[in-house]
């Protein structure tokens, strides 16, 4: 019998962890001599108080949706993919090649093939650590960390030496042609009479990300493959006994994970910058870890967590603009969320389990 009802595990523990992280963050803000309540007010009004703020919040959330889903899928197979950052960088290369070298008649067609290109490059970058884990037993955490650094070097080389336009000093590709410009939420919502900020970068990729959420949910809970991934994640030996191949599951889970991380590039490279620059991922690959942990690796949880982190990102930017609190506050909050929901899980879980056991004994 479970020690706790399921809702406590799914809702209560993340909520308490989040509150703990929030309290500590407030203490940090107090510690550097600012008012936490004023800071929260500024963040809320900056991130959610206008369609401009929402536009940025949703733009960041789109990035985190893709990377959060990527980490989640791997988590289900008990693989800890820290390589989202590198996979998203390479995904950007996939998008850039598709957009620059093929003349697209319409953005919708370009988006489909750019997504494919991004997923392909991201998956390819995840395939090597996956293969090494499955076949050679090298630790996936260490290899994906190493691959993040290798990806940065590869991208640096490609941008400086191969894709940089003639005469430009900037290590970046040329601008993508006008035809592959993705419609922003402003352009999408205007025809149905909804006013949305013109300046915000949120674009049609957000809908792709929501679609990816649904697809991942279907995959994990409604297909045989998803069942096998979860079975393998729960018990490697049990899965082996049931005839599930560890090599196959490790490979497939990591390929999907890398593909999802790579697809992030449709948002930041194709939807926003419209050219590939160095460090275009801005750490979103790592935020995916916090998002997946907080969302309990469930697509709906990931969705909520991604919106929350989108809010934190945009709110943090507003804070940095109007107060002397630097943007790095978000990194601290991110660290606290990872710490409490991931590493210190048992600190919250232990006392809660005791409370629920005591309650049950009281009833019986």
């Amino acid at each position, binding site marked *: 019998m479970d020690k706790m009802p399921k809702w406590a595990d799914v809702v209560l523990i993340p909520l308490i962890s989040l509150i703990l992280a929030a309290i500590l963050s407030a203490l940090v803000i107090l510690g550097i001599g600012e008012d936490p309540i004023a800071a929260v007010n500024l963040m809320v009004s900056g991130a959610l108080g206008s369609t401009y703020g929402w536009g940025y919040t949703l733009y960041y959330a789109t990035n985190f949706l893709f990377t959060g889903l990527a980490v989640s899928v791997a988590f289900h197979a008990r693989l800890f993919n820290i390589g989202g950052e590198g996979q998203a960088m390479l995904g950007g290369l996939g998008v850039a090649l598709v957009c620059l070298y093929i003349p697209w008649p319409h953005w919708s067609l370009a988006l489909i093939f750019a997504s494919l290109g991004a997923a392909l490059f991201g998956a390819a970058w995840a395939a090597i650590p996956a293969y*090494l884990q499955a076949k050679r037993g090298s*630790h996936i955490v260490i290899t994906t960390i*190493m*691959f993040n650094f290798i990806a940065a070097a590869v991208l640096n080389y490609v941008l400086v030496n191969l894709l940089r336009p003639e005469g430009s000093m900037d290590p970046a590709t040329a601008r993508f042609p006008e035809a592959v410009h993705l419609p922003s939420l402003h352009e999408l919502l205007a025809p149905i009479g909804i006013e949305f900020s013109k300046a915000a970068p949120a674009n049609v990729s957000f809908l792709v990300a929501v679609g990816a959420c649904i697809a991942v949910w279907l995959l994990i809970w409604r297909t045989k493959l998803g069942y096998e991934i979860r079975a393998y994640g729960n018990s490697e030996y049990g899965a082996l006994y049931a005839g599930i191949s560890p090599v196959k599951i490790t490979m497939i889970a990591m390929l999907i994970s890398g593909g999802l991380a790579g697809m992030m590039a449709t948002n930041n490279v194709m939807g926003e910058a419209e050219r590939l620059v160095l460090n275009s991922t801005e750490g979103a690959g790592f935020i995916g870890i916090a998002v997946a942990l907080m969302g309990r690796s469930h697509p709906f949880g990931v969705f909520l967590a991604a919106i929350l982190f989108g809010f934190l990102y945009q709110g943090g930017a507003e804070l940095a603009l109007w107060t002397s609190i*630097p943007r790095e506050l978000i990194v601290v*909050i991110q660290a606290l969320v*990872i710490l409490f929901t991931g590493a210190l899980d048992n*600190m919250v879980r232990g006392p809660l389990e005791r409370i629920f056991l005591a309650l049950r004994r009281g009833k019986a």
Partner: protein
Amino acid sequence: MDFLTLIQVLDSTVRLATPLLLACLAGLFSERAGIFDIGLEGKMLMAAFFSAAVAATTGNVWLGLLAGIASSLVLSGLHGLASITFRGNQLISGVAINFLAAGMTVLIAQDWFQQGGRTPSLFSGGRFEPLNLPFADALADVPVLGPIYSELLSGHSVLVYLAFLAVPATAWILFGTRFGLRLRAVGENPAAVDTAGVSVVGLRYAAVMICGLLCGIAGAYLATALQAGFVKDMTAGRGFIALAALIFAKWRPWHALGACLLFGLLQAVALRFQNIEIGTFVIPVQMMDALPYILTVVILAGFVGKAVPPKAGGEPYVKER
């Protein structure tokens, strides 16, 4: 390449290998005791900031060193709390510590100095000065051996010599003392250590704290000896290169020295020569940057010797009832 250039490259190899070596030995203690530590980077960064900040405020580099070590120990304690006491996931805890350090250092630096997340530059007294070995100037003119002694061996900060002395010390502690034997045992078979009546928790905390101490020195070296002050993200992946060196060395102290010198040499060469031409083929500088990571992946894959980590590494110890 002439002799003097060679000496200069080797000299910067030593300088660049020092923080790697200290962090690598730090990881060695922790991982030999069964606690994976991917938070080396964060601990170094935190120590780099606090050593520079305190050295800048007090003008005393030794106080800076102590502050750096103390801050690194705090993060080590956090890692211990998460991964030993609460039996959490050690890798996730390490990731959190890296982010915590990356964020907190800039946050505190901005609040403390208002210089956009850096500390003021350190002047004499606030820095570790180069130490001239005896007769270094007198022997400088002796051919071949003179430059080796006066340029390569002499003229480093005291922390460099400390780091190199830490290698035999580590080897002796791990393989020559009872504490070392127990520490290695707890990384291979904690249940056996427990049965023998020795505290698994105590040993693992000891290892994690030694790791914090060494990371603290590594960070202080970066900010107060190699450079004069803290800048945002100044560790620049060195914690991960140290981790790579640890795997490369297969968790052995003398091999760690070799691996760190090799990776230090790669950094020194990449710093000095941008693109290296071999005949008609050009090795781009990015290749040199990525080489430590690529080599580690190759070693991990078992194509060149097999790197087998301590058996109980990454697993929290649960006493069976």
